[in-house]
């Protein structure tokens, strides 16, 4: 069976656009594609992140276990648990309402902040912050010391951000509803930036099956352009030697490696190694593109290999401060 026929067959069986399957076959091969599609069908266990600003990990675990929850420690983060069984809705327990934990849809969304490694006293931008999961994870690692500028453009999602930060007792945030590309107007230079960029969300299919059919190839191009323009603007807000972590929940290389390649070509940046025990290297060749070798240091996560959402993370260091004219 040729690739076109196989793609059509798999697209029909699993309910995807044909173009998506054709791309998976090229990236992962036949076996890898089938494993990926099967893993997407299974879904993911939600993850709770203990809010150490309010309670210790041990106390929270004991309280939830006593209520009948079955929890499994996330292997590489000592303050988070996968929820294997929950007798109640995760968003309705007293512990949730008291702000003792935040619910993540999968383990992948904990990784970007882990890679950023925020420290107390730093000034950090969270450039696509709502509904506040990553912002609050940063705040707890910073012990509420330093400043997080949390930015998002969506009015509705900003309400959720405010509610989440309040519930979790986060204090060190100043939140703006604005386009992150306007941040250079503030004329401030920060230590670190997290851009968990708006994307096609192809990696979220295990959680949201509607994404099998909701995006077209044109959406990948649109997102890639948006991601590059956001990155370009944000780099102007970074101090010399400052760190920017770029992540998406898309597995499309055009939204990931290609965006990184374009900023590496234009700005004085280096790709940093990350303290992540898992993940596959970033692609250096795909769909006829060849990108810089150092992008190998980026990490890719997949549901069929790592049990996470599909995720991409890359850590960049700015070697020279940029001025507004660049």
């Amino acid at each position, binding site marked *: 069976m040729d690739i076109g026929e196989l793609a059509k067959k798999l697209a029909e069986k699993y309910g995807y656009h044909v173009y998506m399957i054709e791309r998976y076959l090229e990236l992962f091969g036949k076996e890898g594609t089938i494993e990926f599609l099967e893993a997407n069908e299974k879904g993911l266990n939600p993850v709770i992140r203990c809010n150490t600003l309010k309670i210790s990990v041990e106390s929270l675990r004991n309280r939830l276990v006593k209520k009948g929850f079955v929890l499994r420690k996330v292997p590489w983060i000592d303050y988070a648990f996968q929820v294997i069984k929950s007798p109640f809705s995760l968003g309705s327990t007293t512990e949730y309402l008291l702000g003792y934990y935040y619910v993540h849809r999968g383990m992948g969304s904990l990784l970007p902040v882990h890679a950023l490694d925020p420290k107390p006293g730093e000034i950090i931008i969270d450039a696509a912050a709502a509904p506040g999961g990553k912002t609050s994870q940063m705040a707890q690692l910073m012990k509420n010391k330093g400043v997080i500028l949390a930015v998002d453009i969506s009015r509705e999602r900003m309400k959720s951000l405010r509610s989440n930060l309040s519930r979790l007792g986060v*204090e060190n945030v100043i939140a703006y509803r*604005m386009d992150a590309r306007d941040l250079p107007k503030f004329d401030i230079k920060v230590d670190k930036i997290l851009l968990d960029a708006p994307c096609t969300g192809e990696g979220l299919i295990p959680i949201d099956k509607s994404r099998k059919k909701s995006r077209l190839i044109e959406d990948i191009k649109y997102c890639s352009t948006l991601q590059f323009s956001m990155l370009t603007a944000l780099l102007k807000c970074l101090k010399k030697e400052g760190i920017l972590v770029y992540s998406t929940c898309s597995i499309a290389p055009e939204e990931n490696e290609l965006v990184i390649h374009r900023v590496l070509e234009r700005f004085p940046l280096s790709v940093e190694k990350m303290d992540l025990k898992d993940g596959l290297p970033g692609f250096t060749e795909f769909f006829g593109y060849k990108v810089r070798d150092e992008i190998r240091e980026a990490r890719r996560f997949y549901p069929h290999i790592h049990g996470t959402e599909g995720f991409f993370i890359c850590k960049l260091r700015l070697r020279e401060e940029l001025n507004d004219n660049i």
Partner: protein
Amino acid sequence: MIIFRKATKKEIVKIQKALNEWAGKNIYKELTSGRVVIIGEGRIKEVFLVPVEVYNILDKTKKVRMPYYLGLFLGEINGEFKISLEGLWLISKYSRERGVVVSEKGEQLFLYGRDILEESIIKVGSLVQIGSKVIVFNKFYEPLGLGMIMKFSDKLTEQPKTIIKNILDRGWYLRKGR
């Protein structure tokens, strides 16, 4: 648009009085140490406790754009100062005697927005008076919200009964805060 500015002396007096009343002692200084009291003035006046480092960023950026939110939401001023859920969290360790402890059943009902009946009240703080606002605690002394303690006459038994009317509870985060 909401304008964020430092609280005026008059506003600070109002906030200080309310917080100190809850604690039965002067806690204002301790609560505001290393923080600035900021008012977000729009249709209503919201009060935020803002760490000095965050305030410095506000000061630098507000000419370009006002923030949406910052620091910790302490409450609002609408005539008098009304404390928020996170404000209650901050003062709760000082205010046990102005609170009541409720049973697990009472806790669940209260977090669903319901009032608390006498049979769910386990302990009443020494400074609680009928007709006063009280902090509602669970058995771990975790603040679940705010209520008003009242007496009423039971229609069936004609016996006086105590009830805690729900004013504000953390179930808000589930019902409205998403």
